[in-house]
């Protein structure tokens, strides 16, 4: 765990809630992005992230500091998402993906060229729709590995399962994603390093 996080947690435990506010600011974007990819619903993602931070605050004393703070936060968030899903049957809305619609806004407002922006937003929509069609268990490992760039060990820590399970889940997740993204889709023709055409 990095020194800044340690200091902020220590301050928060001593009653300075502003320190916890700084932790929220530090990790809210990252956590929101990951949860949104999993839930595919901005409102649900917002609820889950808020609940996760509040739960983290309430359990801050039990945080041992032997892992990174954000992996602990992710764990709380994904547990919260699963709980929310059980309660409301809304969080992981697989039906939205099956209809080909996505709750994630695919538009990239930062793009200058309209053609590129359109292409990219199509790719985004295609990707999110594909993610929505695979199982939540597989979606989470793909999000953590490829979007969040976590290592096997960190994913295992977040999900509380052995590394071997993570390997096999990732293997099945990649195959499942391959099956739902057709080979002839938009970004499919771009060359890939290491594989000669």
């Amino acid at each position, binding site marked *: 765990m990095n020194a800044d996080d340690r200091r902020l947690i220590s301050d928060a435990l001593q009653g300075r*809630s502003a320190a*916890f506010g700084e932790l929220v600011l530090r990790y809210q*974007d990252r956590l929101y992005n990951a949860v949104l990819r999993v839930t595919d619903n901005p409102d649900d993602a917002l609820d889950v*992230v808020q609940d996760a931070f509040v739960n983290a605050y309430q359990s801050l004393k039990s945080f041992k500091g032997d892992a990174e703070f954000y992996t602990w936060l992710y764990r709380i968030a994904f547990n919260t998402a699963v709980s929310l899903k059980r309660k409301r049957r809304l969080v992981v809305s697989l039906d939205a993906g099956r209809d080909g619609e996505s709750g994630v806004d695919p538009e990239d407002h930062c793009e200058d060229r309209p053609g590129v922006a359109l292409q990219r937003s199509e790719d985004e929509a295609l990707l999110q729709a594909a993610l929505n069609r695979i199982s939540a268990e597989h979606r989470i490992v793909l999000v953590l590995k490829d*979007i969040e760039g976590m290592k096997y060990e960190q994913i295992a820590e977040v999900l509380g399962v052995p590394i071997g399970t993570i390997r096999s889940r990732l293997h099945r997740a990649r195959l499942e994603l391959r099956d739902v993204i057709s080979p002839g889709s938009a970004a499919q023709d771009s060359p*890939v390093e290491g*594989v000669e055409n």
Partner: protein
Amino acid sequence: MLTEAQLELLTAAVDGVLPAPQEAALRRLIAASPEAKATFRHLLQNQRRLKAARRHAAPASLSKAVMARLPASTVPFATPAKPARVAGGFLPHLGWRPYAVAASLFFAVVMGSFWFNAVYGDANTLSAQQKSLPRPAVDTDGRETTIVVAIALDRRPEVLPSPRLPALPNPPTYADSRPNPKAPPELVVAPRPHTYDVIGSRDMLTELKPRDLIPVRLPFLGSVGDLDRADAQAQLAQEMARDSAFRLDLFAKDTTKGLESVVTAAKALGLTVHQDGPSDDRLKRKPTWIFYTESLTAEEIGKFAAELAAQEKAPDRQPAFGWFHFVPAQQAEQRDLRDLLGVDPGLWKKPMKSGANPTPKSATGGTLPEVITTLTKGPLPKPTGNQAIALPYLPHAARVPASSSKVKAFLDQRGDRKVGAVPLIVVVKPLPG
């Protein structure tokens, strides 16, 4: 159609966790299979898309919303409650502490006394004994005359020589038998504690004595696929330097396929494998197999293990095994082999040294039976060495009789054990569960 193992190789490559040998296998696979190449490209492109996916920022109101909810939540740093007082009793506000301090002091005093007696007990006895001895006499010049006293460190008083000063005309001298009277009393060195080997437990048959050291030797466990690694090879060699016969347990989903791997590895080392199997179809399903050879040296067993690992990792076939145990052979294996082969395999028999003459036999010894056999069955095969045998081991009903032609062929051709050969029993057993 790609196999599951090939798909695993491809997805592991996408994850970027492929070790060097598997990377070579991946390149071969992609070069050989257009389907594998297309799949790999597809997987990589999906990964690239995920990595390039736009990151969504949290709404600006999120942190405010979280902070607004915090005061309503339980404060984690609430002032700790004061410990409850114990009503009544001696110094109730101190609780258990005085008792703990008193107990600690008592314990320290007892242990100190024990230690003091243990260390200085002999010295005190010595002082008392010295006091009982005569003081040095003083000669006419006022100089002290040296009295050499032999003192034994035995506490039994009768061992000490009793001085008889009045009987001596001169200052007595108690001669010490040792050349240097100032030398310290001779110490008796305790015998070195015997070391027992729990795994190679023939030593355990002897009686354990108090304070004997028992270093526990654990079996060498690992994954069959790792047996070609340098550290695994080094550990195998280390294990084999400690005993003379070994058992290798291999756990396989399909024991018959597992045995095929073992036989293939053995043949790669030039062994001739005599294999017999159960005739009953019901018993052919997943029996436990035993493979025995006494033709491999420790170094060759290392190569055999590496060959097994290479087969495990071959991209064109499914792994046959999971884990292995490598342990010294026991009497039980010797008995089982004797039952299976009909003769004592002599697992711990020392091999005949090269050039050593065998016990001379009479010129006619065994000639008549050989002539009869030659006339009836043709000439006996000459021992060629490098033999191995694979037989069903368990259940007992699956075993073949020791009179089996394969067993006879193995026994006829195995010859004398060569120098440096290490008997090896490989047991291919089904995975538990």
